């Protein structure tokens, strides 16, 4: 119970960073922290106490394995998170080359 709560505290640190920081790179860092917290929360839900990894071995009968479905979902989520972080960093580099700053309060001019 307290482990779930610590995971949600990590999530709320990411939310605070996205809401309050003015530097675009700090906002990307907050997004990365939110991704870590959500992936960790999924794996915490699927853990069995004194369980074993979901990999079978030869000539052994393993009865208490942890949940493999959650691990399959999080595996693709980690790689997709990397792809979206790369895309948003590419957009941030282009913004710097056009406006000369990373400050989000100065990037409000909509040009055609």
């Amino acid at each position, binding site marked *: 119970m307290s482990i779930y709560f610590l995971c949600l505290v*990590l999530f709320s640190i990411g939310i605070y960073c996205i809401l309050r920081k003015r530097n675009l790179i700090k906002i990307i*860092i907050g997004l990365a922290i939110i991704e*870590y917290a959500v992936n960790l929360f999924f794996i915490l839900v699927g853990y069995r106490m004194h369980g074993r990894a979901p990999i079978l071995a030869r000539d052994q009968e393993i009865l208490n394995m942890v949940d493999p*479905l959650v691990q399959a979902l999080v*595996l*693709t989520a980690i790689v997709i998170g990397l*792809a979206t*972080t790369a*895309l948003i960093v590419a957009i941030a*580099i282009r913004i710097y080359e056009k406006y000369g700053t990373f400050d989000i309060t100065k990037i409000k001019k909509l040009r055609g």
Partner: protein
Amino acid sequence: MIELQLLLLFMIVGAIIAVEARDLLSSVVAVGAVGLGLSLAFLVLKAPDLAITQLVVEILCLIILIRATINRDLPLIKDGRWHFNTISTLVFIVVFLGLAYLSLKDLPVFGQPLLRVAANYLSEGLSKTGAANLVSSVILDFRAYDTLGEATVLFTAVMGVLAVMRKTGRIKD
């Protein structure tokens, strides 16, 4: 699970350093430390596929972030209404954590998962697919549509990066 709680405390301290550091390079290094702590947490939670994937993905994410931040720092300026903004954000986060604590009581106790669908995969994974790694059999045989969707998302992200970073401009005549 005392080692899991210590790892989570380490990740929280690393995240606070990453959010509050003035220097951009220091906060990128702190995010790298949080990611490596997450990889250790996956290992403690008996998920070796995820530990390998998170480790190498964290290294690549660090390389991409450092490429964006090198030589591009920003001096910190406090804008107007700073007190009101910070206090309202903190009130929102406290309300969120309070409601989350109330709703966490409905989750199953930590360590006794429900396993309604996964009990099927655990008992007949080897006989139906022939793979010893049950996570691979779930990704590529029982739930192969999700992997097809993930390949599509990766392809689209690569096309997006190539389209954004092309040289643009008009031909001067």
